[in-house]
């Protein structure tokens, strides 16, 4: 009996352990060679040598030779090598070589580029604008194909490509192809949560592979058991074609930032916001850089006001008149288009329409105006700020929280619905308004609001275990410091910052190490960039609060610095953007996620505001 029990225990533990080891070793890429094939100098030589005929550099003019690669030329290739030439995001030509060594594959690719009719038709300006990317397969592995959900999640996002063998022919979609064709983060694992998406759009990938092979998508589907994933080492030439830059998840990574590089990033982001300004003072709401397409969809006034705030912040930090002028236009838009007629003859001003106004729009409009006045000294919007302040006071409940909706036609508050962020935004607005309107009523309202947000708001059983998206609360706590300084606010914000630190991707964070500084959960769902910005704004404010209180928190400072590196890394910079139709238009933008480059104005608002407010927290030199 005892022996049988022992056998049962061994089987119960051993079988799952053996199963785990077996499945892991079957699908893990390290089972096969996964290593960088070319080092930086070798990649420089390889790309310049490939480009030389394209730039029509005569051999005597210092064109590199393949011999300069030395031993790297003889390195065996575990899979194909691809040379892809892009012009403003469009693939001009791609050559795949299945040669055995690096040297042979490069020679074959160079011949193909030399003989390409598509390149022959490019004029000198276009040739100069082209970007050449080199991909070398480093490893290849199997995937489970029988279970749709497993198949969709069998490709590490942005790192793995998809390949298939159909009737002896092999087709590949490189990791960048999957990003550019929006095939990632597309599968919906839970039927009733449409927002939760993760994994490959298998049907679209089938169609793309079929195009590559010249067969039907049904043929590819029928050959699903021959699908595989593969990983590549990638480089793209720099815009001046002088160097090879490493590529990871479709972008050229940034290893570290200093104050100068962060300042440049802030300037680019603010310039991006200025470029989005339309003739009437509103912003182009969203931008799709792959297609150079502006998308106007449900224009958000709180986001308009937030972006306006950023412009004033940028003017304060960088001093460029273009930011001041853009902020003036954007506030003018709020004053002339966003204050409904029913709120114009009243003592207070609201923001929205006659049917529906809301707390958040008025709050962030106030913040934008205060920052503008502090930055420029221009008091032309002070009256509007004062009336918005009265509106915020009117919306506050006795417990310190706020009603979030208002019907101007009826003059009635709607206290039923609660919108994420609005109460925190109102607390910040009250604190900021006090900076230009030293009214005791504002001071008392700020205190009541912060008491509620850091106390009663979490005064229930589960509230002791979590903190929501309270970044505005902590930004408000710092802004309110001259008026009210309470331990409870600091403790709350320290706890929020520590929570952020716990979910922050570490530099040695395994598969997500390249995204160090972001805030995310598991490798299956890539972090979003906006929370990285908004939480960093909060962490900057919390760190400053800790300094003001004489108890500086070094952990929070470190969290801020890591996030700022991440934000610069994610920004569209000249060295990346080879997949974009108009790099000049996209410059300075920040996408929704590391793989989804659509830019909405609030992504810029939060990330650039974090840069502006955290600039002096970054060391001057790396």
């Amino acid at each position, binding site marked *: 009996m005892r022996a049988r029990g022992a056998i049962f225990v061994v089987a119960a533990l051993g079988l*799952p352990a053996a199963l785990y080891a077996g*499945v*892991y070793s079957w699908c893990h*890429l390290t089972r096969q060679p996964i290593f960088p094939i070319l080092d930086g100098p070798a990649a420089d030589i390889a790309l310049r040598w490939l480009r030389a005929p394209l730039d029509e550099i005569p051999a005597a003019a210092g064109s590199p030779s393949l011999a300069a690669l030395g031993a790297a030329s003889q390195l065996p290739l575990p899979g194909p090598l691809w040379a892809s030439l892009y012009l403003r995001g469009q693939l001009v030509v791609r050559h795949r070589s299945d040669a055995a060594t690096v040297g042979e594959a490069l020679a074959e690719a160079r011949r193909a580029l030399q003989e390409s009719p598509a390149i022959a038709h490019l004029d000198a300006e276009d040739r100069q604008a082209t970007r050449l990317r080199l991909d070398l397969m480093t490893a290849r592995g199997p995937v489970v194909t029988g279970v*749709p959900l497993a198949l969709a999640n069998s490709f*590490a996002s942005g790192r793995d490509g998809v390949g298939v063998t159909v009737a002896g022919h092999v087709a590949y979609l490189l990791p960048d192809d999957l990003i550019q064709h929006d095939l990632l983060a597309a599968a919906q694992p839970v039927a*009733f949560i449409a927002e939760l998406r993760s994994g490959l759009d298998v049907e679209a990938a089938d169609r793309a592979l079929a195009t590559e092979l010249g067969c039907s998508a049904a043929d590819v589907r029928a050959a699903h058991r021959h699908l595989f994933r593969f990983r590549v080492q990638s480089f793209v030439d720099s815009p001046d074609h002088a160097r090879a830059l490493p590529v990871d998840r479709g972008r050229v990574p940034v290893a570290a930032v200093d104050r100068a590089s962060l300042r440049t990033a802030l300037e680019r982001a603010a310039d991006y916001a200025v470029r989005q300004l339309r003739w009437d003072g509103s912003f182009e709401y969203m931008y799709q850089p792959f297609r150079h397409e502006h998308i106007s969809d449900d224009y958000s006034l709180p986001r308009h006001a937030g972006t306006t705030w950023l412009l004033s912040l940028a003017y304060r930090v960088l001093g460029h008149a273009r930011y001041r002028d853009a902020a003036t236009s954007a506030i003018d838009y709020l004053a002339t288009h966003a204050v409904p007629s029913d709120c114009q003859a009243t003592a207070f001003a609201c923001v929205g329409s006659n049917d529906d106004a809301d707390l958040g729009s008025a709050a962030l409009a106030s913040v934008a105006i205060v920052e503008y006045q502090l930055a420029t000294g221009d008091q032309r919007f002070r009256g509007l700020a004062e009336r918005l302040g009265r509106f915020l006071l009117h919306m506050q409940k006795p417990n310190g929280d706020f009603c979030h909706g208002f019907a101007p036609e009826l003059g009635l508050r709607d206290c039923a619905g609660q919108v994420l962020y609005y109460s925190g935004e109102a607390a910040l607005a009250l604190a900021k308004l006090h900076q230009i309107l030293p009214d005791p009523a504002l001071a008392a309202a700020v205190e009541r609001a912060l008491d509620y947000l850091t106390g009663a708001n979490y005064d229930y059983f589960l509230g002791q275990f979590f903190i929501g998206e309270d970044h505005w609360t902590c930004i408000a706590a710092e802004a309110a410091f001259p008026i009210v300084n309470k331990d409870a606010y600091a403790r709350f914000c320290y706890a929020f910052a520590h929570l952020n630190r716990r979910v922050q991707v570490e530099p040695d964070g*395994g598969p997500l190490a390249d995204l160090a500084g972001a805030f995310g959960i598991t*490798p299956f769902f890539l972090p979003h960039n906006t929370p990285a910005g908004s939480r960093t704004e909060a962490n900057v404010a919390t760190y400053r609060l800790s300094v003001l209180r004489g108890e500086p928190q070094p952990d929070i400072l470190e969290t801020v610095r890591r996030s700022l590196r991440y934000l610069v890394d994610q920004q569209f910079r000249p060295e990346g953007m080879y997949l974009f139709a108009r790099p000049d238009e996209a410059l300075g933008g920040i996408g929704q996620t590391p793989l989804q480059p659509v830019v909405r104005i609030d992504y810029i608002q939060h990330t650039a505001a974090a840069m502006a407010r955290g600039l002096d927290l970054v060391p001057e030199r790396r």
Partner: protein
Amino acid sequence: MGKRRTASTAFGIVDLGLAVLYSFLVLWVIPSRSSTFTVVALAASTVLASGGVGMIVQSRLGLVVATIAASFMVAATFALILLLVASAAYLHGIYDGIGQAGAALAILAALLAIEVVGLVPALQLVHLWRRRREWR
């Protein structure tokens, strides 16, 4: 003897309740895109329900059906755990590491599988083992 009969009836009612719950979850709360999963889950619910009926009827045949159903559910729990282990290993292999959160989720899912799917049938089997002399 009366207590055991009452306990059998209680097990039968719980089985029927769980069968309804599983069907409801699979069909309405977490509908799967895979029809295979739905069919297997509904089949398991049917087996569980038939075992429940057997436990309530308490005829010789009924208790045999209940024993088979409970054994099937215990085996299904093991299979589910093995599938979870294989899935965790697969994701670990693909993503180069699923981290603490991933491991914790996998363990939680396995524990949940034992509790939700395997616990009642296991206790039922023990109960039926104790009643085996009655129907031999």
